[in-house]
């Protein structure tokens, strides 16, 4: 996986890139990751609404949910199962992807969002002024504004940046009972994931696929990537996410053309004299 945007600013202080590999084929949907994350990061409880969406009452990633377990009930054969069967229950713990090219980071106008020496993307709560631009720049819908307690800031997974300072594992990965969430140097994780995915395919789980493990995808690969058992949309993930800054030049170009056109228009307006 390539170096994440901005890590070069650390020079010799840059660390090997760290990340998550979430292997959904062993996720038991226990939500320990959600709770462990909240406990460590002091993320508030955010509502007691029952959804009826299988066992998912969390719903989504947002300012108050930095790990979210998706539950998908399908009337489809489960390749893990032996013999004839027609039902499967997929579970997936979602998280901020810590993109190589991170839209939220690039658009943040205050520098609140920055790239760490570990290649992760973190919001500095003491800097963020709650402008909300990052929300629109995330292809995964990870960030929202925390309204609880009048907070007003934007929040998301920090990959436990504080814990990393002491060589500790992020809270979610540490808690995960079945090691569905694996933490470590990204290159090692990618290698392990490729092996695992290959094994699964070989064992007949042809739907197994890696998601965001390719550094040439629209976000330059992710610091948190996944082994999925169905299309990404099924889990609420974008199928081919692209960082919006990929089109930065085009956009600035279009703006420049428009500005020029405006100038021409105004000039033209003066051609007919004052009356």
């Amino acid at each position, binding site marked *: 996986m390539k170096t994440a945007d901005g890590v070069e600013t650390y020079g010799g202080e840059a660390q090997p890139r760290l990340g998550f590999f979430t292997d959904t084929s*062993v996720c*038991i*949907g*226990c*939500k*320990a990751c*959600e*709770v462990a994350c*909240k*406990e460590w990061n002091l993320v508030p*409880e*955010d*509502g*007691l*609404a*029952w959804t*009826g969406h*299988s*066992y998912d*009452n*969390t719903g989504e990633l947002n300012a108050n949910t930095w790990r979210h377990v998706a539950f998908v*009930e399908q*009337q489809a054969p*489960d390749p*893990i*199962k*032996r*013999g004839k*069967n027609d*039902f*499967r*229950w*997929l*579970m997936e713990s979602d998280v901020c992807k810590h993109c190589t090219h991170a839209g939220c980071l690039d658009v943040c106008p205050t520098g609140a969002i920055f790239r760490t020496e570990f290649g992760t993307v973190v919001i500095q709560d003491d800097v963020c002024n709650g402008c909300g631009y990052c929300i629109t720049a995330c292809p995964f819908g990870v960030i929202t504004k925390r309204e609880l307690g009048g907070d007003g800031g934007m929040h998301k997974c920090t990959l436990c940046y504080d814990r990393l300072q002491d060589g500790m594992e992020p809270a979610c990965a540490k808690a995960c*009972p*079945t*090691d569905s969430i694996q933490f470590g140097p990204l290159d090692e994780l990618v290698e392990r994931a490729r092996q695992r995915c290959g094994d699964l395919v070989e064992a007949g789980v042809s739907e197994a696929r890696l998601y965001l493990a390719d550094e040439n995808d629209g976000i330059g690969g992710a610091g948190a990537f996944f082994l999925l058992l169905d299309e990404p949309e099924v889990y609420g993930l974008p199928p081919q996410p692209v960082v919006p800054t990929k089109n930065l030049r085009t956009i600035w170009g279009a703006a420049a053309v428009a500005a020029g056109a405006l100038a021409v228009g105004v000039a033209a307006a003066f051609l007919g004299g004052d009356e």
Partner: protein
Amino acid sequence: MGTSFGRGGATTFQQDLANSDAILIMGSNMAENHPVGFQWVMEARLKGATVMHVDPRFTRTSAMANLHVPIRAGSDIAFLGGIVNYILENERWLDEYVKHFTNAPVIIDERFQDTEDLDGFFSGFDPDKRIYDTSTWHYAGMPVQETAGERAKGGTKGEQSGHGAQAGHLAHGEPPEEDETLQHPRCVFQLLKKHYRRYTPEMVSQICGCTKEQFLEVAETLCENSGRERTSAIVYSVGWTQHTVGVQYIRTAAIIQLLLGNIGRPGGGIMALRGHASIQGSTDLATLYNVLPGYLPMPHAEKDTDLASYLDNHAGTTGWWGHFEAYFISQLKSFWGANSTEDNDFCFDYLPKIDGDHSTYQTAMDMIDRKVRGFFLFGENPAVGSANSRLQRFGLASLDWLVVRDFVEIESASFWKDAPELETGELKTEEIGTEVFFVPAASHVEKDGSFTNTQRLVQWHFQALEPEGDCRSDLWFVYHLGRKIREKLAGSNDPRDRPILDLTWQYATSGPLEEPSADQVLREINGIGPDGKALGTYADLKPDGSTACGCWIYCGIYGDEENKAARKKPGGEQTWVASNWAWAWPLNRRILYNRASADSKGRPWSERKKYVWWDGRKKKWVGEDVPDFQEDKPPTFVPTDDAKAEDAIAGDHPFILQADGRGWLFAAAGLMDGPLPTHYEPHESPFDNPLYSQRANPTRQLSPRAENPYNPAPSDAYPYVFSTYRLTEHHTAGGMSRTVPYLAELQPEFFCEVSPGLAKERGLEHGGWATIITSRTAIEARVLVTERMKPIVVDGRPVHQVGVPYHWGTRGLTKGDSGNDLFPGALDPIVHTQEVRAASCDIQPGRRPRGKALRELVESYPSTVEASA
């Protein structure tokens, strides 16, 4: 398991599941209720093991399994019995194991008659009392007596404790009549064959509602993955429970594991998963009415009139129960210390006596009848957690006084102001005379102490900080309450006050709160020798009063004056067995009966499954674990005829608590409802029993009364089957989860699960409300329509199930009706067990009526207070 193997605890430990080649999870939703333990199942799966889940519902465990077989709730014995039959029919048993390690060759009394002979009954049934005379089930040629847990003779039932050690005992050495060829028609092996011969794949399919292929896949997978080179494990949990019929479920699993040679071996065994941090410990240390610590039976008023008769009734002669007297006398010494002498029968008379069923359901009814007047609750919430919690609330409302010890104001403390019966007008706050003391409890981080986990491992937790305010540990509460009572009674001459005044009650206290020392209590449980030093093994206990020991099976936990429960040597710094992390009873053995991990000659069954074996050079048993055998007894050892206790056990008999040292395929003693597990229909089952004309368990006992009516069975008014269960996100009655914000938000509302078919049939709307009705009450829940709830087709008839997680109550961050209100409270655990798994109900769309109209709705449904057979 006690009757099959000698001890009631899980035979193995969770980490060992990673060594299994196949794992059958049944009666358990392990991934949801024991997620962290489930890592070892996942590890096995990743190594290539086949994980099978046999369960009525498709749960998060099923999602992870290689095979999910839905079967009708309450049909587990038929399924397992089918596996027994499959093994026997296809000659898949491990022959050497079965011949040497089990009682398969033993010949049974000629008067014994099987359910095959008597159409659903065993010999000895008394139709008036509805109990068995078990004397015809014994080994031919000798009387067999029961030891701990035995109660049938008093005419009461349902008093066995599931977790404990219990075993039959033989009067002398080896069984007198055996047939090594297993051909004798009355040998256990042949009786087994006969008993299960009609449990064919077709019959299993008919009773359980699974397909023949599904059943065969499970049976064959177990067989394929058992033998010298491979081992399979069976995991169960509260789905099978710890009660009498649960004992029979577990017995069937035990028979399978003995036939396949999977007990005592790595990757094998039966893993019992308990639901609470110390449920194993609480039964070991006996907060149960019928046992004393270490599964010594409570003396019975009529049978055990003095020490001599008690010992005569209960002490074994062969196997480790042969030292019963030493265990018991040492316990009396730890209770009454110097006051306990040979001259006063070591204070035997100080022990109160039992003479019937004094279990919690009986107690609740006795509250209503004003027999029980004062009640202590220690971290327990019967107003939500118990079956027919309505009955429990009536009980609480009838007390003189109630003491509640908990973290939060649970429903059992607040019932007088918010019980659902206030709304219906059945109770009125001003009319409830119960005086309630809520005394807040300290949490686990605010005290020292030990929990015994599901694998018999006693683990110490250290105090992190002092409790705040009035919060105190239960150790503090009990100690200081005892101290105050003793002070108040100090001058008494009344003989009935002697037991309390003579109790050894001197515990060192420390700190500003005067907290008694848990460490000292653990040392007392461990026991001390004549020199006052902590004992290292129960083998050193004496019957002469020179040793004291609170609980013999915990003896050794404080050996060498070290609190071994507090050992925290990191797992990564020791072998996979991790013997230096904490301490497991008995004597730190992690796999029980591990002598069976070697063949009859003491050699490992295979390199792959090597664990404990006989080292001929060192002349001792060696290996990964503490050998569960006399260390220097060679495999060739043959006892003399007059040998006693452990000396009467042969070198090729690994089950050293059993009187004959063998695993019991046939339970010649210790069970009241049959020596071999038999399929009966649940009491409220909508089906007949295709195997026998005797439909339900003939020994079941009902306790109908106005507060506890039954649904007529079968009845068209209650066409569906429901069961209650737990979710990962909550804990039992919810006192430790509904009050916790991070958990409450994960499952924020009480819901029920139904299939699309049932939703259509009853007009239930996904996300809407439903009312579930039994003859006890009606409750409302949000509706989750899901394909996970498939109807099970039995006899060509689809049986719709309603799934009811039972964590809710009237208080907490998330509130809701209580699922357990639907169940009948049952005097007899036989019925209780069956019905928590499967009882009948009706379900209707919409919310339930409020106030009086609720009772009117319930009363418009049929009910019975008849205890029909």
